């Protein structure tokens, strides 16, 4: 089999996968909340964000928009700016992504939990954060081109204080650029040298935590299994009673 054929097959597979993700008829396996319900965490520490994307500041920008939705969901959220400073002092930042995978990952969760005294740790991987145009499976660096999309994609992984998985979710939000609307063009003209992704990250965080699912304007949200409400949420007692009965959120 030639290399070109293999590449073609891979590209086709990716296209098929992408098509599958966009289809609302796709059957989803609902997330198993068993461990989450059993642990019922009261506090969340947002771990140092694992740097997967090129934009090095993305993780910092992301941190600015995660506290509010987590707190509004009913959790105690450790102060992110202070936590990052303490993590720096304790040598948690500047580690390689491999240091947050497999067995080491459980170790990290336990170390962080011991340092902060938290019930749970939220690990986030930013897998996409860019303003590049995409064509034929290739991302081309071209921030001034008005055609294309802004995209952010994040993977969320909540563990208990020993690294056991409580909740996992992905969120991806794409904002179509261009399209002839004069306001859009003005926005893009001013926004492109900066970071419209921060606004998208804010929406990604909010919608993945609350589990909002809809299509709004030119933004597409993907269905997700939300976080359960925490102990400071007005709906907590009611939800917890219901969960005990059916063991689903």
């Amino acid at each position: 089999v030639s290399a070109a054929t293999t590449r073609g097959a891979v590209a086709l597979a990716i296209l098929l996968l992408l098509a599958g993700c966009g289809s609302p008829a796709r059957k989803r396996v609902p997330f198993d909340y068993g461990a989450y319900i059993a642990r019922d965490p009261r506090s969340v520490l947002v771990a140092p964000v694992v740097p997967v994307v090129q934009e090095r500041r993305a993780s910092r920008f992301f941190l600015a928009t995660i506290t509010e939705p987590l707190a509004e969901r009913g959790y105690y959220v450790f102060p992110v700016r202070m936590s990052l400073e303490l993590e720096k002092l304790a040598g948690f930042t500047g580690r390689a992504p491999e240091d947050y995978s497999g067995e080491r990952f459980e170790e990290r969760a336990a170390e962080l939990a011991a340092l902060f005294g938290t019930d749970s740790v939220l690990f986030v991987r930013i897998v996409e954060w860019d303003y590049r145009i995409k064509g034929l499976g290739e991302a081309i660096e071209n921030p001034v081109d008005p055609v294309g999309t802004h995209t952010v994609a994040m993977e969320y992984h909540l563990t208990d204080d020993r690294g056991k998985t409580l909740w996992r979710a992905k969120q991806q939000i794409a904002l179509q650029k261009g399209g002839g609307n004069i306001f859009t063009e003005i926005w893009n003209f001013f926004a492109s040298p900066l970071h419209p992704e921060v606004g998208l990250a804010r929406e990604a965080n909010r919608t993945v935590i609350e589990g909002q699912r809809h299509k709004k304007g030119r933004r597409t949200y993907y269905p997700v299994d939300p976080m359960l409400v925490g102990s400071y949420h007005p709906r907590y007692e009611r939800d917890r009673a219901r969960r005990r009965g059916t063991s689903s959120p």
Partner: protein
Amino acid sequence: MRWAAVVPLAALALASVGCASDTRTYYWSSYQYDLYRSYYEPSKAKKFEATLLRIIKKSDASGRKIPPGVLAEYGYFFYQRGEFDSAIHYFEREALEWPESEVLMERVIEQAREGLES
């Protein structure tokens, strides 16, 4: 370039304000926007500090619970400047308001006390 910076930031600020009329539990002021701004331009950290104080004052005045982490975050600004008395004051308030923070607050209060003695 000056204006290029202002427009998206203003939009983010407006977006934050837009949420103020909804059913949120806490008063956040411009928390997200100012934290983002402090990462974007480190010289704006003072603005974030002022916003934290505004959240504390306004929450107190209206009898609402102060959002998690805000008292600790504010106290840490004092800690970093070596103003350990004020730092301890806010760390203690955080621990009182949010028992979940006790382990961490006890640790930083101890560090601040060591700072006082040296």
